[in-house]
């Protein structure tokens, strides 16, 4: 089972409307999100400058969850958007079971997301 399938098993789906915030900069990243449909803008705190956009079938929050970070930016929904919510602790549990070389590899890639 790959990560999209794993996250896709989550039955917790948020239906959000244009302009709603999924998460706010400075709050803890305790969940990862899979966009089922719609779009999500990541904007800089204070300036609201658009940093990037995520679309359907894209996952948001893996690096922040793996680093145990706070969200560095705010996520604003564009249009009607369905988002599957997957708890971070389940993913972390799976990663803890992985061999150490795999964990090291994932950490290296995670640091490149900074």
């Amino acid at each position: 089972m790959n990560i999209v399938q794993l996250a896709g098993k989550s039955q917790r789906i948020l239906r959000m409307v244009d302009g709603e915030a999924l998460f706010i900069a400075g709050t803890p990243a305790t969940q990862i999100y899979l966009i089922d449909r719609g779009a999500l803008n990541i904007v800089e705190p204070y300036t609201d400058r658009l940093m990037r956009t995520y679309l359907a079938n894209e996952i948001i929050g893996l690096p922040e969850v793996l680093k145990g970070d706070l969200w560095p930016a705010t996520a604003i929904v564009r249009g009607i958007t369905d988002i599957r919510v997957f708890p971070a602790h389940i993913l972390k549990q799976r990663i803890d079971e992985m061999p150490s070389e795999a964990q090291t590899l994932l950490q290296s890639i995670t640091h490149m997301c900074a």
Partner: protein
Amino acid sequence: MKAFDIMLLDQTRLTRQHFAKGERILSAGQPTDRAVIIESGSAKQSSPWFDGKKYSSGDIINFIEFLALEHYQSNATASHPVVALIFSRADIKEMLDRNHNLTWPLSCMLAIDATKRHSSQVSS
């Protein structure tokens, strides 16, 4: 980035290739259907986001691009004579899958996110 212990790689799957100093090892636009691991020597990357990154023995060249993209976006050139081990995409996936069934998909998802973040930084 070292993803594998070079000593543990399946020697039957690889092709060994030699590059002279200054020779291009990977070019932007080339499909990411093969991964290049440096067995000996060193190389330098020039890319839109990680300019000047240096590679040495055991490193996979432009690994993030290999995982995330269909085509390499960076060039890599031998700084010193390089012996490179060439693996197919399928072989790398199989090696990572053998390690753990989440290693390949998680690596790819993270790499996709890394390129998305860095490309948006470059364009701004």
